[in-house]
């Protein structure tokens, strides 16, 4: 009964989405306020029905209703309660339901909080949002119905894939989807602006907070996914350049570019056409990401099952939306008026530089990810493009970008003084040089790139600090002035500085963990000791215990440093009887400051020894910490008074007429 209710609610949401696809556009065209207003109610109701549908599926999971095929395939009565909630989206059908839940949530948010938008713009935005929603409701209802019933009701479920039985599943997919789908708002605004043929600085001010919100969630989602892969897959790596990871990195790169170009548009009314194009491309990359992950063309942890019909359906959605929006862009973009002028050395140019490099980096990832698929389709050759390709192309493109970050922050709008900025960055440069020289002296010529990486990270961080000290006039040495200036500084300026500082943190983590990390793979017998980077780990023996739906064999290790005990590590292997004895490796982590010891178990050998893989990862936590601080910078910027209160009214009060 509950499952049917959920199914029915989804059908109703589809009906509402179809109405909302047409009526506001008609209303905006004819100037009919009632038709335009209709979209507000349908957007809210749509969210209500999808939420009901999602709640119904969740209820089926919590009550372990195995007559629903989806629950039977992915749940188990003995599974801890939190996983019964998270396994709702730990499968193809449920994760698509989460996708549309978030999509309709964003639509409802625009309807609820878009009171100060021009009526026609709001109507068109909600209509475009509904086109996307309708396409995905159809996709779910026709190819991926999560409420399908089984004719015979099984007694017990087949359990969730053990790899997914982790807290990471509670955070990673929802955050990632909030990011992916959040970019749909920027897309809808862009398409609505193209339909109206009119765009101004106020438009950018409305789009920016939505983009910022999506970008923050995507940043956290990617970082969480990376950390999860790091501790769960047992390989000790944090980024594999796996196509599915790339699928999330591409919208992030494009979204980061969008964030920066929207600033130019908002402040200087320039780069309009490019910003519109980026908004379209960013969401297109989100759609491509969804296609790559959900269609089964790629093999990865994220692929749940293969069904050609699904792939074809998403491919059609993809072509209609990307092709349609780009065609609309080609047709209508020439109508948009050119914006303000700026000199080649200016804040605007620095942001163009940023966009250029981010977009190019995104394009190289795109080529590396899709080349194998295209090649296979054309020639039948199966290849894989691995980490070396991405390191060789991505690295050289990111270096100039990172060097430019502190300069861009300090350059003035319209016409900047590069020499003056360089002078103000002398201190930051000195910090970087000291870091570089110290690393060089310490390491010699063993690690060629490390000194430069450290220097670059310090430069980015010191550059962000310089920005703050300049703005707060720290050199005046008057506490009152500093305090007043710091308080008076716009939150978005703090946000910029914090996010850029975080970029340095992440880079520092990457350089340190990859340069000075060490790895040992050994076979150990009880009471034997293995040493790594000054830590001694002695293997005390095996411990067996039972979990709720698994059996666990853990190896007990005592960790000593310079003779004194500093901790215990218990890496384990879990076997899941409900999954035909499928086993997972649970790595043990010992955190010391922001560095970690990482220990994971291999096989038992015939001679009674166990294989272990041991890593020392110096400063590794900085990688994810940096991402979190980056998102915090975004949050600071989002809380800026300017964005909270919204755009000044004049532009909104002119009764907009469709440009013909």
């Amino acid at each position, binding site marked *: 009964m509950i499952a049917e209710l959920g199914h029915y609610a989804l059908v109703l949401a589809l009906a509402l989405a179809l109405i909302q696809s047409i009526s506001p556009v008609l209303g905006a065209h004819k100037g009919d306020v009632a038709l335009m207003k209709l979209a507000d109610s349908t957007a809210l109701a749509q969210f209500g029905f999808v939420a009901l549908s999602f709640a119904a599926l969740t209820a089926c999971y919590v009550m372990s209703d195995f007559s629903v*095929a989806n629950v*039977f*395939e992915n749940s188990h009565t003995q599974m801890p309660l939190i996983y019964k909630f998270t396994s709702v989206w730990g499968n193809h059908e449920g994760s698509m339901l989460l996708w549309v839940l978030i999509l309709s949530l964003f639509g409802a948010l625009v309807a609820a909080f878009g009171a100060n938008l021009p009526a026609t713009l709001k109507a068109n935005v909600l209509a475009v949002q509904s086109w996307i929603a309708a396409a995905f409701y159809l996709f779910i209802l026709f190819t991926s119905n999560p409420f*399908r*019933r*089984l*004719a*015979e009701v*099984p007694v017990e479920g087949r359990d969730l*894939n053990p*790899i997914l039985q982790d807290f990471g599943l509670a955070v990673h997919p929802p955050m990632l989807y909030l990011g992916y789908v959040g970019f749909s708002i920027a897309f809808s605004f862009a398409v609505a602006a193209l339909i109206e043929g009119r765009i101004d600085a106020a438009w950018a001010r409305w789009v920016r907070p939505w983009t910022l919100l999506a970008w923050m969630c995507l940043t956290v989602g990617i970082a969480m996914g990376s950390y999860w892969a790091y501790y769960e897959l*047992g390989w000790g790596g944090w980024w594999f350049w796996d196509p599915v990871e790339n699928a999330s990195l591409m919208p992030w790169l494009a979204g980061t570019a969008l964030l920066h170009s929207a600033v130019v548009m908002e402040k200087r009314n320039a780069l309009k056409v490019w910003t519109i194009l980026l908004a379209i491309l960013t969401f297109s990359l989100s759609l491509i990401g969804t296609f790559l992950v959900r269609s089964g*063309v790629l*093999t990865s*942890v994220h*692929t*749940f*099952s*293969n069904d050609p019909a699904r792939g074809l359906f998403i491919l059609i959605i993809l072509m209609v939306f990307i092709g349609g929006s780009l065609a609309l862009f080609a047709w209508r973009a020439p109508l948009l008026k*050119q914006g303000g*002028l*700026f*000199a*080649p050395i200016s804040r605007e140019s620095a942001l*163009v530089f940023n966009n*250029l*490099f981010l977009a*190019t980096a995104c394009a*190289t990832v795109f*080529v*590396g990810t899709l*080349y*194998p698929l295209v090649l296979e389709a054309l020639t039948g*050759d*199966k*290849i*894989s*493009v*691995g980490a*070396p*390709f991405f390191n*060789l*192309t991505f690295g*050289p*493109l990111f270096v100039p970008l990172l060097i430019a970050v502190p300069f861009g922050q300090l350059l003035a709008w319209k016409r900047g003084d590069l020499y003056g900025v360089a002078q103000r960055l002398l201190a930051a440069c000195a910090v970087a040089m000291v870091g570089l020289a110290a690393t060089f002296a310490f390491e010699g010529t063993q690690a060629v790139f490390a000194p430069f990486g450290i220097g670059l990270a310090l430069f980015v961080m010191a550059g962000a600090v310089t920005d703050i000290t300049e703005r707060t006039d720290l050199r005046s040495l008057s506490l009152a002035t500093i305090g007043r200036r710091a308080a008076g500084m716009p939150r978005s300026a703090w946000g910029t500085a914090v996010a850029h500082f975080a970029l340095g943190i992440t880079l520092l983590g990457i350089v340190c963990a990859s340069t000075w990390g060490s790895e040992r*793979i*050994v*076979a150990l017998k009880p009471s034997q000791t293995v040493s790594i980077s000054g830590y001694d780990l002695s293997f005390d023996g095996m411990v067996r215990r039972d979990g709720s739906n698994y059996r666990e064999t853990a190896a007990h290790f005592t960790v000593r440093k310079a003779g004194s005990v500093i901790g215990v590590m218990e890496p384990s*292997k879990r076997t899941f009887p409900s*999954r035909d004895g*499928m*086993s*997972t490796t649970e790595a043990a982590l010992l955190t010391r400051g922001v560095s970690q010891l990482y220990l*994971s178990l*291999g*096989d038992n*050998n*015939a001679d009674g020894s166990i*294989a272990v*893989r041991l890593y020392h990862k110096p400063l590794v936590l900085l990688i994810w910490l940096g991402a979190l601080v980056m998102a915090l910078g975004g949050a600071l910027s989002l809380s800026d008074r300017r964005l909270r209160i919204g755009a000044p009214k004049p532009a909104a009060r002119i009764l907009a007429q469709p440009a013909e």
Partner: protein
Amino acid sequence: MTRKQRRLILIGSSLGVLAFAVALILSSLRESIVFFNSPTDIADNKAPPGKRVRLGGMVKMGSVERGYDLQIRFDVTDGNRDIPVSYRGIVPDLFREGQGVIAEGHVEPGGTFKAETVLAKHDENYMPREIVETLKKQGHWQETAAPNAVPVKASAK
């Protein structure tokens, strides 16, 4: 500075960056792509010795031998030909006899495949697409073993 000049600078620098990126992509693609091979491909010497390739197939039943110091040897088969593989290290959780596996490494002069990485699947119901196709080509694929087959009959409701 006129709008035209500004635009020229912008387009010029964009093209410069793009050309740089294309050069990077072309030079690194040549070095870092890895071809996927079935055991039959390897046996037919499609992969020159020493070149980095991927080998995919099933771990042959009864072929896994574990040696001293984490050495492991096994045969990868596609039902037609078997290729001996040697590896030192820890194999993934789902590495088992009779299951799909992908090994990345190179063919040694003696014909043994020396693996540097061994990948297995992440889900016991799931078979990497490359391996399915390899098995299909050799006629050893049974649809009953299809991924995510539901043992009980499903209704369309």
